[in-house]
C-alpha cells in the first residue's frame, strides 16, 4: 500500500470501519511509514480535542410533563381533523339514509291510521317513566349540526307515530341532554397554564415558520378570546404576574388573529419582530416552568 491510498482511508481505519484485511494492510503501512504514522497520531490527537468540545453543555431542558402538556394543548386546539376525516362517509351515508327513511314511511303509512288510537296512552306511559325527558323543555336550545330545528321537532312531536318510532324519539331526546361543561369545573390555574403553553407553542411555530401558520388565524382567534377571559379573571383575582403575562401576550394575539387570508410579508415580519422584541416566548416559558413546579 502506498501513502496516497493509506491517507485516503486512514480516517476509516481510525474509526474501525475497515474490513480486517484492509485494516491489516493499513497497519502494516503505518509501521513502515513515519509520515503516515504521524498523520495517524494527528487524527488521534484531534479526537481528544473534539471529545472536549463534544462535552454536553448544560441546557435548560424542559421536563417531560411540560412537553406532554404542550402536546395536549396542541391536540385541544385542533379538534377538527376527525370530523373532516368522516366527511366523505357522511356524503355517502346521507342519500342511503334518505332511501331507508322513504322505505320506512311507505311501509308504515298503511298502519299509521290504526296506531294513532293507541299512541296517547303509550306516550303518557313514556312521559311518566323515570328519567324520561320532558318534551318541549329544550326548544330554546340551538340544535346541534344535523339535528332538526325546534320548530320541526315540535311538528314531529304532534305527529302520530308508531310505538317503536316513539321509543326511538325519546331515546334521541335523552341523548340531546346537554352534558356538563367540564371546562367550567377545571382548576383555573391549570387552564391558564395550558393556555400559556398553547400560546407559547403556536408563537414559536409562528416565529420559526410564519408562512405555515399565517393562514391558521382561527387558532389565534380562539386563543385571543380565551386570553381576554383569563386576563379579566387574573385582574379580578389580583394575580399580577398572570395579568402581566396575558396583557403582554394579547396585542400579539390580536395582530395574528386579524391577519388577512393572504397576509403580506411586511405584516408577518412586523409581528415576528414584535415577538422577538417583547421576548414573549421566553416570558411564557418562564411563567409556565415556574408555575409547573
Amino acid at each position, binding site marked *: 500500500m502506498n501513502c496516497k491510498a493509506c491517507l*485516503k482511508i486512514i*480516517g*476509516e481505519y481510525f*474509526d474501525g*470501519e475497515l474490513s480486517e484485511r484492509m485494516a491489516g494492510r493499513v497497519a502494516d503501512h503505518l509501521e513502515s511509514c513515519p509520515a503516515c504514522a*504521524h498523520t495517524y*497520531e*494527528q*487524527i488521534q*490527537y*484531534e*479526537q481528544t*480535542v*473534539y471529545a*472536549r*468540545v*463534544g*462535552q*454536553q*453543555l*448544560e*441546557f*435548560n*431542558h*424542559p421536563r*417531560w410533563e411540560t*412537553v*406532554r402538556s*404542550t*402536546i395536549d394543548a*396542541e391536540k385541544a386546539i385542533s379538534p377538527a381533523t376527525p370530523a373532516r376525516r368522516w366527511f366523505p362517509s357522511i356524503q355517502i351515508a346521507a342519500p342511503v339514509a334518505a332511501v331507508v327513511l322513504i322505505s320506512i314511511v311507505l311501509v308504515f303509512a298503511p298502519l299509521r291510521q290504526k296506531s294513532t288510537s293507541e299512541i296517547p296512552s303509550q306516550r303518557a306511559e313514556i312521559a311518566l317513566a323515570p328519567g324520561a325527558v320532558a318534551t318541549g323543555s329544550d326548544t330554546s336550545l340551538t340544535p346541534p349540526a344535523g339535528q332538526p330545528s325546534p320548530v320541526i321537532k315540535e311538528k314531529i312531536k304532534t305527529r302520530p307515530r308508531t310505538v317503536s318510532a316513539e321509543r326511538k324519539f325519546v331515546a334521541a331526546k335523552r341523548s340531546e341532554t346537554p352534558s356538563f361543561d367540564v371546562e367550567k369545573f377545571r382548576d383555573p390555574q391549570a387552564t391558564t397554564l395550558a393556555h400559556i403553553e398553547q400560546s407559547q407553542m403556536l408563537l*414559536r411555530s409562528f*416565529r*420559526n*415558520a*410564519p*408562512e405555515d401558520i399565517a393562514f391558521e388565524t382561527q387558532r389565534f382567534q380562539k386563543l385571543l378570546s380565551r386570553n381576554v377571559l383569563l386576563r379579566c379573571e387574573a385582574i379580578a383575582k389580583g394575580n399580577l404576574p398572570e395579568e402581566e403575562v396575558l396583557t403582554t401576550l394579547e396585542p400579539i394575539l390580536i395582530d395574528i388573529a386579524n391577519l388577512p387570508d393572504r397576509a403580506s410579508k411586511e405584516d408577518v*415580519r412586523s409581528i*415576528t419582530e414584535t415577538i*422577538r422584541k417583547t421576548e414573549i416566548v*421566553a416570558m411564557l416559558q418562564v411563567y409556565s416552568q415556574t408555575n409547573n413546579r
Partner: protein
Amino acid sequence: MGQLAMRLIKSDRADTRQGPIDGTDVAFINSSEDLARRARSGDEEAFSLIFDRFIRPITSFIYEMVGNRSIAEELAQETFVRAYKNLDALRDDGKLSTWLYGISRNVIREWLRLPHEKRSPVEVDDQAVLELQDTQLGPDGQFMNKELIGVTRRALQLLNEDQRMVFSLRVFRQHSYQEIAEITGFSLTKVKKDLFRARETMRRQLGPYLEVSR
C-alpha cells in the same frame, strides 16, 4: 455482564445516564429497546424515561448543527413532540436512538431551510462555551481549553450542512457509519466522503491548535 448487557451498551451508546447493570432482568427493563416497546404500547412513563435518556444528546447534536443554545432547546422539544405523536412509525425498537436522531435531523433541516429573514439570527453561542468548566486544568489550561472549544465550534459552523451532520454524529456522538447512513439517509459512500472532507476542513481551520509536535 453477559451478552445482554453488551447489547444494552451497544444500543444505548447515546445514553449518558445509564443506570447500574447489576442484573439481567433489571438491565433489560431499562434498555432503550424495551422502553421503546413499552412506549409504543401506550406506557407514558416509558416515554418519559426515553425523554430523560435522550434529551441531552439530542439537544447537543442539534446545538452542533444550529450553533445556538435556545434554538437547540426549542428544536429538541419539537423532536420529542414529533416522536411522541409518531411512535407507531418506529418499526424496530432496537433502533430507537437512530430513529430519534432521524427525527431531529428532519427538524433541523426544516429549520435550516427557512429563509434567513424568517428565522432567528444564529450566532455561535460563545456564552455557552464560556460556561464550560474543566476543573482538572489550571487557569491557563482552562483559558486555552475554552479558546480551543470556541474556535472548534466556530469552525464547525463553517462546514456545509451535510458534512457538519456526519462529522457531529461520528466524532461527537460516536455513531457507526451504518447508523449515520440510516439517520441521514445518505449512502455509505457519501458518509465516508463527507466525513473525510469535514475532517480535512476542520484540520485546516483549526491548524495550529491541532498540531502534534514530531
